[in-house]
Structures are given as C-alpha cells and as structure tokens.
C-alpha cells in the first residue's frame, strides 16, 4: 500500500494553487487527505501533482454572521465543530459534523474537502443541499459560485472542472424557528451512513408547517425527498406515520444496493428516520 510516484507542491496563494493544478492533467487538491491519501495508497487514484492547500493564506477560516456560516477550504471539521458561533447560526452544521468519522479524522478532514470528494453516503453534501449552501470555486477562468443543488452530479463527481478548487462554502442560516436534525443509520460509530437524513423542520402549534428533507447514502447524490416534503405539511405527532413513510419510500424506491444494505432497507430506514425526525422536531418545538 504505497502510492505510485507523484509530485507535491505547497502554494501560498489561491492563484498559485490554481496555477499548480493546471500545470498537469492529473493534479489533485490535498486538503485533509482523509479520502485522497488512502485512495492513492491503494493505487486507485492516479495523481501526478498533489497541490497541498494547507498553507494557502486565508483558506483556514470559519466566519459566522447572522446570515450564515462561511467555511474556508482548509478549515478542518474540528475547527468548525469547536467554533462557538457556528451552532447558533447553522445548527445543522454541528449536527452533521458529529456524525463525520472519528475525532482523528475530523482533526484533519475539511468541510470543503468532503464536498469536493462527494461521497454519496457523506453527511456534509446532504447538509449543503438541504440548507441551500453556495460553493465558491476558483479556476483558470476566475471565480464562480455554484449552488449546492447543482454541485453534486454523481458519486464522487461534482461540478468542479479540471483545474478548479473550492475556496469556501457558505451555509445560510435556516428559517427562524426551524429545527435541523441530522440522523443516520450506520453500521458502526463514525462510519459512512447506510442511510441518512437532513431535515430542517418548521413547526407551528404542534404540527409541521414545512420541512426541507434531504436523504443521503441512498443514491449517487444527496436525494431531495420531494413527495415527503409535500406530505409532511400539517403532520402532527398523533397522525398516522404510514402516509409520510410511504411518501419517503416512493422518493427512494431506487436506493442502491451494496454489501452493507439492500435497496429496500435503505428506503425503509430513511422513512423511519423521517418519522423520527418529525417527531423530534415537534417535541423540540413543544419544549421551547
């Protein structure tokens, strides 16, 4: 498990990083390296130049304001988790990160790296889609901003073009009074999810007014549960759960099969998570 030969460079500005990325065909950005380095060691990824952005000025920031949280490309997951301001503005970010890997992984892994890697079972891409995050990208043609909803194209496949890198991601604050729940079924603590859900729920007088529901670990990209979003309006804890569950299962009928779970299991599991999330959100609403 030794990687094939590669070059390594450590730029100090975004411009230098973009230049290095464009110096060869199979260049890759190294941020936390928690997925890329194992893939190189397994010789699953062919990398000629590794562009380490860990020393690029200004990329390791976490900035909170009332409108949202902006996370730089080199900011680690632990940095975001430990930031006092984050939870108050985008509660879902903290809720999602608690499911990401183990402490050691979060100490190195970055939020933007997880988005760029686009593992279909990862929490952060789903959160980005659910919360309407905007991803800032720099490349040879300058900067552009991509809505998270347009960013994820397939498994491990994003709207990033060759030679581009993410510089930051902006998670907007959810609607006031809403609750964001990130829940998942994983085989072991810290594993990628077998099935997961990001739910931002607005409740009103003991019933759900509306909810943003995005599943993960189900298909190639985060899965917006559109029928369930339609079905959940007006749902209350004493309503039958079946119609809501069935809506989720209709949204996830083509969930994938792998060695960890079958398609039907994933679909059922995310339905159960949805019902659970709705109940928790309503209970939280009552408590507050």
């Amino acid at each position: 498990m030794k990687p094939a030969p590669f070059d390594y460079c450590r730029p100090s500005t975004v411009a230098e990083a973009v230049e290095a990325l464009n110096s060869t065909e199979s260049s890759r950005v190294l941020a936390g390296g928690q997925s890329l380095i194992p893939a190189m060691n397994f010789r699953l990824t062919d990398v000629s130049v590794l562009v380490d952005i860990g020393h690029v000025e200004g990329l390791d920031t976490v900035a909170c304001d009332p409108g949202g949280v902006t996370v730089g490309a080199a900011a680690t997951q632990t940095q975001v988790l430990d930031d006092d301001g984050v939870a108050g503005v985008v509660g879902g970010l903290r809720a999602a990160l608690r499911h990401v890997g183990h402490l050691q992984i979060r100490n190195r892994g970055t939020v933007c790296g997880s988005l760029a890697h686009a593992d279909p079972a990862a929490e952060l891409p789903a959160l980005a889609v659910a919360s309407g995050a905007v991803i800032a990208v720099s490349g040879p043609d300058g900067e552009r901003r991509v809505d998270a909803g347009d960013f994820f194209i397939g498994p491990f496949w994003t709207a990033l073009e060759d030679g581009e890198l993410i510089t930051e991601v902006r998670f907007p604050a959810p609607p006031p009074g809403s609750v964001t729940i990130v829940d998942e079924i994983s085989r072991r603590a810290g594993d990628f999810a077998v099935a997961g859900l990001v739910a931002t729920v607005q409740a009103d007088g003991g019933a759900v007014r509306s909810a943003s529901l995005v599943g993960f670990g189900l298909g190639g990209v985060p899965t917006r549960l559109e029928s369930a979003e339609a079905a959940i309006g007006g749902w209350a804890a004493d309503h039958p759960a079946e119609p809501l569950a069935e809506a989720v299962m209709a949204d996830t009928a083509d969930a994938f099969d792998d060695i960890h779970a079958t398609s039907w299991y994933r679909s059922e599991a995310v339905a159960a998570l949805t019902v659970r999330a709705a109940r928790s959100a309503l209970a939280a609403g009552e408590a507050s």
Partner: protein
Amino acid sequence: MSLDIDSHIRHSTRHIGRSVPRREDRGPLTGRGRYVADIKIVGMLEVVLVRSIEAHARIVSIDTSEALAVEGVQAVFTAADLADVKTFPDYIPYIGPVKQRPLAEDRVRYVGAPYAAVVAVDRYIAEDAAALVAAGTTYEPLPTVADLDQALAPGAPTLHDHWESNYSFDVATHKPEVDHAFEQADHTFSETYVSQRQTGLPMETRGVVADITDGTLTVWSSTQSPHMVRSTVALMLGMPEPQVRVVHPTIGGGFGTKTHIYPEDIVVPWIARRLDQPARWIEDRMENLVASVHAREQRHDVEVAYDDDGTIRGVRCASMLDMGSGEIFMPGTAPVFVTNACITGGYDFPNMQARTIGVVTNKTPAGAYRGFGIPEGAFVMERIIDRVARLTGTDRVELRRRMLVRPGQTPYVMHGGGRLDSGSHTESFERALEMAQPALERARARYAGDPDVRVGVGFSNYVEPTSPSYHLTTGHWGGGDAATVRVDPDGSVRVAAGLSAIGQGAETTAAQLAADALGVSPENVTVVLGDTERAPYGLGSWGSRGAMMLTGSVLLASERLMDKARAIAAHMLEAAEADIVLTDGAFHVAGSDQPSVSWAEVGTAAWIRYVDLPDGMEPGLETSGYFHPENLQHQLDDTGKINAAASWSNGAHIGVVSVRVSTGEVRIEDYVVVHDCGTVINPALVEGQVHGGVAQGIAGAMYEHFQYDPDTANPRFASFMDYLVPTCAEVPRMEVDHFESPAPEQPLGVKGCGEGGTVGPPAVVAGAVSDALSEWGVDLTECPVTPVAVRAAIRSAGAAGAGAAGAGS
C-alpha cells in the same frame, strides 16, 4: 486425583491466583516493541508478492521484463525459479492433497494467491514493479465456484486436477440410537444454520525477515508457532534444522491466523539464500484481507427430533466447511471437526449424529481463528434449543436447566468422545442468570416508554476444549510442550519455553509460576519464549494451550531443579535433605535457627564452586520438563471417538439486547460471562482474554463478513470500509465472574481460557434478537445479525405494524 497446589508453593506471598501486572506491555505501550517490521539489517531488500486478480485461472504467461527494467529492482521470481523448493507436505491421510507450491505454478485458485515475488531496494519501487508484473500477466480465466452449492453442483468445475469433485473430505458417523430417537419422538423439524466467513485479524499483520550468515538462516517471523516454522522451512529448503533459527520478536496478536505456515515463510528465506542478502516482506492490510486465512464459513443442515414436553430426543447434523481453495499449511480442515465435537456444549446430549464435510471453493483458504469451530456449533445448538422451546411452549431457561451437565456428572463423555473432566456447567448458568436479571430489568425499564424498541435475552452454555492434540489438525505434530529452568550463579532464574508470546500474558504467567515454585520473587525470573535457538521445542501458542502447557512444563522442570537444589543446600547446611525447606529465596533446616543458604550460594556451588557440591554430584543447575497430559488422545479409538483435549473449560454467556423495530438496529445493553478455566493463575489475564474474546465474538455475531461475488468469486471487500471490525463503541460493558473447577490431570488444575470468549456471542445475539422479536415469530438462523437481516426477518413474518413507519404508530 486431588490437587495439592500448596505443596508446589515456596513463596510466602503466593503469586499464583493474583493479578500480577503484565510484564510484556511496556514495550508495545511505549512504542518500544520490536516487531518484525522493526528489524533493520544493512543491505536488506524488500519483497512484494504479486497476487492473482482472478479467482480461478490458468496463468498463460508472466512478462517480468518491464518490472526488471525498473531502477532499484533486484529480481523477479516466479514458480519456475523455486523448483528446488519442496512442496508443502500433505500429512493428513483422509483429506484431499492440495500439493501446494510456495508460488502458484500455472494455475491460481483464489484472488490473492501469490504467483510471483518482486525484490527491490525499497517497498515503493517493489510495488511499482509488482504493478508491472501484474500488468504483464496473461490469464486464461476458468469457471469459478463461489460457495458450497456451486462447488457441489453436478458438473461443477473442480479446483484440483487430481480430485474427482470439490469434496476434500466427508466423514460420517452412524448411530442407530439416533435413528431410534427419530422414530420415537413426537415431532421433528429441519433447519439450516449458517455462520459467515471471517478472519482473526491481528493488529500486526504477518511479516518475515530472513538473513543467512555463516551458513545459518535466521528467520524473524510474526508467527504463533516458531518451532513448526523452523521444521517446515528446513524441510522445504532442504536445510538441517540446527542451521535454521526462527526468532519470535514482539507479536501484535495472532488469533489463530498465525498458526499456519504460509508461502511467504518459505519464499522470503529462499530469496535471502538465493541472493545472499537479507530480505523482508511485511504484509500490508490489503493483502492481509485476502492472503491470511479466513475462517468460520460453515453451513449446518440439521434435523431435530423432539417431544411435546420439550425433550430433544435426537439431532442429526451435517456440518459443511467452505475451505476456500484449501491451499494452506497446515490445512484448515480441523475447525469443522471441532464444531461437531463441541456442538452439544455444556449439555448432556449424547444422541447427536454428525457428518463432517469439507469443500473447496475459489476463495481465500480457510484456517484457524480463535474459537476454532466452537462458536459455529454453539450457535447451532442454542438456536435448536430456542426453537424447540418455542415450538413446545417450554421456558427457554427451564429447558436449558433440564439439559445441562449437572454437578457430580463429570467426568462426562460427550457424543464424540470429548471427556469433560470437570466443570461447572449448571452452576455457571445459574450464576449468569442471577447476574443478568438486573440487566434485563434495567433494559426493560429504559425502553418502557419507547414503542419502537423491544428487549430480548439470549443464552449460550458452551465448553472449550483446551490444550488439544495437534495430530488431527496437522497429521504430524502431537500436543505437548517443553520448558527449561535454570538458576544462574547469582541466583537469578531463567525460564525458557517453546510456547510463544502473542500478547496473551505468557511471560507473566511463566514468571508467576516459577516464582512460586522456586520461592523467589517474579522480578528475579527472566522468561525467554519462542526463539528456537534459546528455547526448547514447543508447538506454539494456539488452542488455549499456553496456560496448561506452560505451567505444566515449568512446574515439572522446577520440581526437578528443586530436587537438586535441595540436595546441594542440604550438603551445604550439613543436614538431611528431608529437613530442608525453602522460603522466599533461602534454604533453611526446618525448625532450626541455623543460617540459611541462598539461591545465589546454591547456584554458585552448582556452576562454579564445585567444592561445595556433594560428592559425585554432576555440576550445573538446569532442568527440563516436557508436559504431556496423560489423557490426551491423538488418534480416534476403535469406536471413532476421541478426547483430543487435555482438559475442558466451560462458560455461560447471557446478553440483553434492545432492537429498534423500525430500523432493525441492535444494541447489546449488557453482557454477562461466567467462566470456568480451572485454577486461575492471574485473574486480570483471564478477564482480558474473556473481554477480547467476547469482542471478537460480537464481531462475528453482528459485523464482520467477507462477502464474495457469486458470479465471479471476486472479493467484495478491500479494506476496513467493507470488512466491519467493531470498535470500542460497539463492544458493550461486560460483567465477568469465575468458577474454578480444577483440571484433574494438570498438576495445578489449570485449564485454558484463550478462546471461550468468542464462543457465546453469535448464539447469544441471535437468541436475544429472536426473543425480542418473538411477537413476529422471528427465529434467526444466520450470522451476522445486521440491521438488514433483522428487518428482513420482520418483513418475512409479514406482520402488520412492522412497517418502516414503526415508531409507535
């Protein structure tokens, strides 16, 4: 025979029975362990094995030219280069011979089979070149068999040319009394129980370093059996055994996988000899998952005859082992025999008729893994008992109480000849029930308000054969072990034994025993294990044999040494030998206030100051003992039965689980173990063995599973992303208690305890989850118990209210 342990104790503060701190941990815990991968020799070359990417294929050609052109590559070897190496022996007469070559010759039978070796100046270059050899290999794919059914289907492709089918062996017993039971019983049922493919997974992978200097080949090997490695390397490379030394450095666990002797154990020394340069190979984790043995993949076709009152009258069980390609030395055949021998566990149940079958498939060879077939059988028996209890409306606990071997019933001869020489089968279960009751109440209270959660309890009452004969497993080696004890001129004690230290605490154990037997402090005892040049021949650490063999052989050697030391002391004190007593490192005349003689004075007399020796006494103070339990049988008797274990430990496990109905998630709330391994030498070590064993048992019950593609026999795993090893977050708190039923035929009453922990969890978890979901009639028959398996079981029950909405609707 009654035990008089005290007669062996010559230290006022007895060390046996105390949790003396482990002496072997300082190195590994402070980063100062010296593992095989830490061995550095000037000029040492790196070896990388090139492994088959086909599950079954002829190798048409291997083009090594590109690899050889890489700067830093010293050589690339294929099977043709190793023509002077003998074939791995096929010692066992009743199984199909596999004629295994160290490197595959013209045919590969599993993904991961080594067929070439690249030698380079460093590992990076070696891997670059290995990739080129792989790319330069032309295969002619052959049809594959990925499981038992495929392997045994009519017209199935056979793996081994000289075999008529893929059966390696098929050994059946016939018992008329079982036929009679089936005729008489009120009811019968048939079921198939399945245990999945796993591996022992030591933290340290395997590794070999080899070097020849002055005609002596030194092999550093991460093995559990250094002397067997020496014998086999010498045999296959055609060298005299004294010219082969196997050194056993710090070992990061073995769990059975390192009892085997692998191609790399032969190929790396051969390369060192061929190139006359030191060479090393360190298994990486990716290779480890395909190149070290797998285990536990068994299917059990069972017929059960039972009466309305829950009495189980007879069981017929055909146990089939998926052996993978079978290309491993020693063969991986024995665990399924152990499965059948131990299947009735702690129950008094003679009416068992067993058929034992081994089948080859295009997968990694199967071999040893801690538990060695016992968990698979325990799973079957406990599932049968639960089924009969449910079918007849009998209480699961009461039925077990009726069946367990009772106090006073030992020695009890099991259906296959296993002789339960002693034990606490009933007592352990009763104690475990007491301990589990509060746990069950706690869990019920915790989830009382959650309509989505059910709570259940599961049981396992098992036996653990310890210190087995190795003859049936290897067709060659037996089952005793040697130790040498020496007292040096300064009075220090040195103990050397052929057993190997693999993390189990063997060094601490040996020191405790020698300290008590020679009346010294453990700090005065130096322990040398495993190194073939420094320790006498021993079979190594496997089969829960360390405690029995080590204490048996060290005690024997110590007693012999004491006889001589007492004679010397008597002479020096001018007293009769019978009047000499030893306490705390000094010999006295009993009841006298004469000055004493120290071990240093006795040692000095023995080795240096011969003038102090009695007339005619041969100098020296070093003795050996070879412990071989009297009752240990190596071969079947006339009736086809065998007691192949020197003694039998037993245990009772009870687990309380919660199951989330809507998602199938299982959580072990509490886990109780009552364990009996005879006289306990060191309670902390025993508890450590139990904890680790249970953790590995839980791995088998719920997580670890090597899955293969049924169409291609390709592994569907490459890393720990796919092969799920439980972490501390998945392993529950355990409560452990002990009984001590001494082994009658071991001088201290010691039995082994290395494997029992692994045995209970599959039966316990499947039983507890089935209990929790009894309202849906769930009765699990396979491991692992995954969320998908749980949901599938609920769905197949088809009950209303079991939908995914669950959660109390």
